[in-house]
């Protein structure tokens, strides 16, 4: 989240779209209701009338996977009616930047599309650069070359009527949503998997960024874009980069062609040198020296063309690449789309190691009903895991609060914290490699790995927070890390630096909130540098004073000549005032220092004169890019009941990845065979794959099993009553489940044609106290090209009464 749970109380309007927070993040309602008691309005856009929708002032039922259509219409509405915050747009976004001449969008494709390689070359998505390699800026928004003009041109096609035909939401209602959201300041957007589980996920969230930048809501209390992360430490595990293509602290992982540290910096900018070197010092300690590129080459280099995201790993597993899978706290057999891929993949492993609390489906895939154990040669080791309150450690919540907890109970039976398992496993592997002279074994032998005989979670957090390698002392604050020369400090995850600076700040429990804005600065520690609301510089005007008198976050103190405030100032340098280039930067993590309406290809700080001996030049900071376009464009889901009404020649996202090395394992269904749209989701009574909650009797009492929610029209059409058993089938699988006939799903029109949505919660499997069919028998493993997230929220199915 750019803001936090407790900040929601400051909002005057909520757009809850792609999130069912009343069910999947119930704590949100506590703070939303506090805002509502002060008059805030709630807008909910969802394929179903959910328990969150029951709280909405405005509810719109949308066809799954068509968010960009109505969001585009809202952007157009803002631009046409000049509802944008002019000062904010001019000073804190790249609206005035001139886009390179080569950029074009036509007939569903951006410039630079390589049909054969199914990817874009992004050279034409840059800015017009001046001699100093800095982007040229126009004088006014009317200049046709500006980002602003490109925005107007791009979204001119998104009228309310067009959006109605695509999404099924009446035009008047979309307008009502747009007007309500644009007039209430500050307004915030809450989204979760409803937005991320599409093949157009990244661009959908980009639409939110554009809307919030145009309205000037980012960086303000009660504003921002709040991603409601789904799991207790998904924020932490993303920060620690359990991801194939990144390193802790969101550093890009090295690829094959990064032969040296310099090659890596050429690709990723010199800004990455300090954090990468600090990370290598944390991992290899004294062995990492300037001479050996700080053991840069000890790291594995992934292959860019093998986009090994989670679903692709099972695809590779199907090809037999993996002999060993270590599966910690994850129930893939229930949660991966198109479950047959997982079943087939796991069977090809030599060994599967699972660490979990319960005997989850993944651990006993070899005796799933209908499977012959004798044919499955995988050896499985199931290790009992300790539970959250049986082990020391920290969890990072959605609001980036790193919260420490001491073990309250001893682990049950012989279960162990995963920390102990990983620690003893590594030390055993190192023991096995003792005495090896093979260079490939050096990383194992030279790695710094000493967290005590009984591994202490605090020692690990201290390694993450960082040390001054010259003195061996803990680095007090993030500022100290930023000041220290590269190589002299170590930090396991630079954005966490300072969490154990002066004592374990993650364990702080002072819950005062003098500002009244719900910042709670003295409770635990928020990364980075305890800043509770990111980009809060943007909440000030040109001379550094808060624009919203009721919600003062940070301000420039002209007397003390320093940035101060209720929240930690999100500025490059506290002493550089609003009149300095650094003091003007509202989005200091972007190369332009401003918000990016247009996600241009640009690297700041490119040297004017090329370096000697024709080495490639190294810039400061390259921009984060979207592989499928600098601007959001509406594309249909991979399985869609209709063609694309904006450009039928390019219906779904041209860069979509459908991993299917085993031919036929990921069939794509046609509307003629599978006329209805399926969306999958969770329910408040259970959690994710249900590995834990389906083993808690009272939760099974509250929600005994899955169901297929269908409209009364559809029920009548297939002759089903509430409670009958229905069979739902997709091109990939089928399941039988109880049907729930409801008015909370209405038939709607798409391009004039009646369309039905079916909803099935997905968190069930054959194991546990409350087994049930898993909706991921049906879903498709089509991945968003940028994020790799599968399109759980939309696919095509058929349904019949059994």
């Amino acid at each position: 989240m750019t803001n936090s749970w407790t900040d929601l109380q400051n909002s005057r309007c909520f757009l809850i779209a792609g999130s069912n927070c009343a069910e999947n993040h119930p704590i949100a309602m506590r703070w939303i209701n506090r805002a509502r008691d002060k008059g805030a309005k709630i807008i909910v856009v969802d394929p179903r009338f959910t328990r969150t929708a029951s709280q909405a002032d405005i509810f719109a039922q949308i066809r799954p996977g068509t968010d960009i259509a109505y969001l585009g219409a809202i952007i157009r509405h803002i631009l046409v009616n000049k509802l944008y915050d002019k000062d904010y747009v001019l000073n804190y976004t790249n609206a005035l930047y001139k886009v390179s001449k080569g950029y074009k969008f036509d007939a569903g494709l951006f410039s630079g599309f390589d049909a054969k390689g199914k990817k874009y070359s992004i050279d034409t998505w840059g800015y017009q650069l001046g001699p100093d390699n800095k982007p040229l800026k126009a004088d006014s928004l009317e200049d046709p070359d500006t980002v602003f003009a490109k925005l107007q041109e791009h979204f001119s096609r998104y009228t309310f009527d067009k959006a109605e035909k695509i999404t099924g939401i009446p035009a008047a209602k979309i307008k009502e949503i747009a007007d309500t959201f644009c007039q209430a300041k500050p307004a915030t957007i809450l989204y979760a998997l409803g937005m991320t589980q599409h093949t157009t996920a990244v661009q959908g969230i980009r639409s939110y960024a554009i809307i919030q930048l145009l309205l000037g809501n980012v960086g303000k209390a009660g504003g921002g874009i709040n991603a409601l992360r789904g799991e207790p430490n998904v924020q932490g595990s993303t920060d620690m980069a359990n991801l194939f293509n990144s390193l802790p602290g969101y550093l890009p992982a090295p690829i094959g062609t990064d032969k040296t540290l310099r090659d890596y910096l050429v690709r990723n900018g010199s800004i990455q040198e300090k954090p990468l070197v600090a990370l290598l010092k944390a991992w290899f300690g004294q062995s990492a020296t300037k001479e050996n590129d700080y053991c840069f080459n000890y790291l594995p280099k992934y292959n860019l063309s093998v986009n090994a995201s989670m679903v692709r790993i099972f695809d590779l597993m199907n090809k037999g690449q993996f002999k060993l899978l270590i599966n910690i706290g994850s129930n893939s057999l229930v949660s991966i789309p198109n479950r047959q891929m997982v079943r087939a993949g796991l069977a090809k492993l030599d060994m599967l190691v699972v660490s979990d609390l319960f005997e989850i489906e993944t651990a006993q895939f070899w005796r799933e009903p209908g499977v012959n154990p004798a044919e499955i040669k995988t050896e499985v080791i199931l290790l009992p895991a300790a539970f959250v309150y049986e082990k020391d450690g920290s969890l990072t919540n959605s609001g980036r609060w790193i919260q420490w907890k001491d073990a309250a109970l001893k682990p049950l039976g012989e279960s162990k914290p995963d920390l102990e398992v990983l620690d003893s496993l590594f030390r055993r592997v190192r023991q096995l490699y003792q005495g090896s002279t093979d260079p490939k074994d050096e990383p194992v032998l030279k790695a710094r790995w000493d967290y005590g005989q009984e591994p202490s979670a605090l020692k690990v957090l201290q390694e993450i927070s960082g040390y001054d390698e010259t003195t061996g002392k803990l680095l007090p604050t993030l500022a100290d890390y930023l000041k220290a020369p590269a190589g002299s400090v170590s930090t396991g995850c630079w954005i966490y630096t300072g969490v154990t600076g002066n004592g374990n700040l993650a364990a702080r429990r002072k819950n005062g909130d003098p500002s009244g804005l719900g910042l709670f600065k003295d409770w635990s520690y928020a990364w980075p540098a305890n800043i509770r609301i990111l980009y809060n510089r943007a909440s000030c005007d040109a001379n550094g004073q808060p624009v919203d008198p009721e919600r003062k976050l940070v301000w420039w103190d002209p007397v003390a000549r320093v940035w101060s405030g209720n929240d930690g100032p999100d500025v490059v340098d506290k002493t550089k005032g609003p009149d300095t280039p650094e003091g003007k930067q509202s989005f200091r993590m972007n190369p332009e220092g401003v918000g990016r309406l247009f996600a241009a290809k640009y690297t700041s700080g490119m040297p004017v004169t090329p370096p000697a001996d024709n080495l490639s030049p190294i810039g400061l900071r390259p921009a984060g890019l979207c592989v499928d376009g600098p601007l959001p464009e509406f594309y249909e889901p991979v399985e869609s009941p209709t063609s694309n009404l904006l450009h039928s020649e390019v219906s779904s996202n041209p860069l979509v990845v459908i991993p299917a090395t085993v031919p036929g394992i990921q069939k794509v269904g046609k509307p003629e065979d599978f006329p209805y749209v399926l969306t999958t989701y969770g329910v408040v009574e259970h959690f994710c794959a249900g590995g834990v909650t389906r083993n808690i009797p009272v939760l099974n009492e509250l929600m005994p099993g899955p169901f297929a929610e269908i409209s009364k029209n559809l029920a009548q059409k297939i002759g089903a009553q509430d409670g009958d058993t229905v069979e739902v089938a997709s091109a990939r699988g089928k399941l039988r489940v109880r049907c729930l006939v409801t008015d909370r799903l209405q038939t709607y029109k798409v391009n004039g044609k009646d369309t039905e949505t079916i909803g099935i919660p997905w968190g069930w499997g054959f194991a546990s106290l409350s087994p049930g069919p898993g909706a991921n028998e049906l879903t498709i493993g089509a991945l968003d090209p940028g994020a790799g997230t599968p399109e759980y929220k939309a696919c095509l199915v058929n349904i019949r009464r059994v």
Partner: protein
Amino acid sequence: MTRKMVLADTSKCTGCKACTVACKEWNQLPAEKTQLVRSYQSMRTFTPDTWTFVSFDENYSGSQMHWLMRKAQCFHCADPACLKACTSKAISKTGSGYVVIDADLCIGCGYCAENCPFGVPKVDDQKKKAFKCTGCIDRVENNLKPMCVQTCQTGALEFGERDELMAKAKKRLAEVKGKYPKALLYGEKEMGGMTHSYILLDSPEAYGLPSNPAAPLALTLWKDIIRPVGTVAVGGAAAAVVFGILGNALRGNYGPPESGKGGKE
């Protein structure tokens, strides 16, 4: 202890059912096997082991869905039918406004279950005891909130002094009426005033509740008329016998039979 109140503002309830879990956790009640009854409701009604659950009623009119969710539990009436029906004097009212069943006195006869207009108390046939929401009287008497109120994240449940909270409820009702014209306050007067009162978004019937609940006429007749009159009648008969004896004795009818008076009619 001053009279307490719990306000359930159903306009804020999202049907998350945390109240059911917290109630079972605090009172150590076992989970039960269930099936979805309708919508997302998994309990049809109360059982000896389920003292609160959320009822779901979907009504769709004028292309507007109203998903009525209500946390059902004992209302703790000021004039409780169960107390009136209980012949074992096991049910009593506390100063704080709660109606509690004393398990030692209860004999499981089920008269409370028969006569409660809301079907709240239920008899456990093994334990031969009637059970219902205790209002977390143990917590309330120790100045804690009832467990359901403490766990409610949306703020739909509030606990406080009766007069203060009832005034606040009326102010809140005015706001809720803006979005739900048919909203009403349920529990201010019903059954003599209920400790668990509600802001409902539609008529009580829409929630499966009686508009003006009352103890069954038969119960009132039984306890207010038949029982006292009957007692007086029996008492009167006994008294009559006493006077009869006295009358005969004074008239010497008890004298020796041959005294001539015996047998005189």
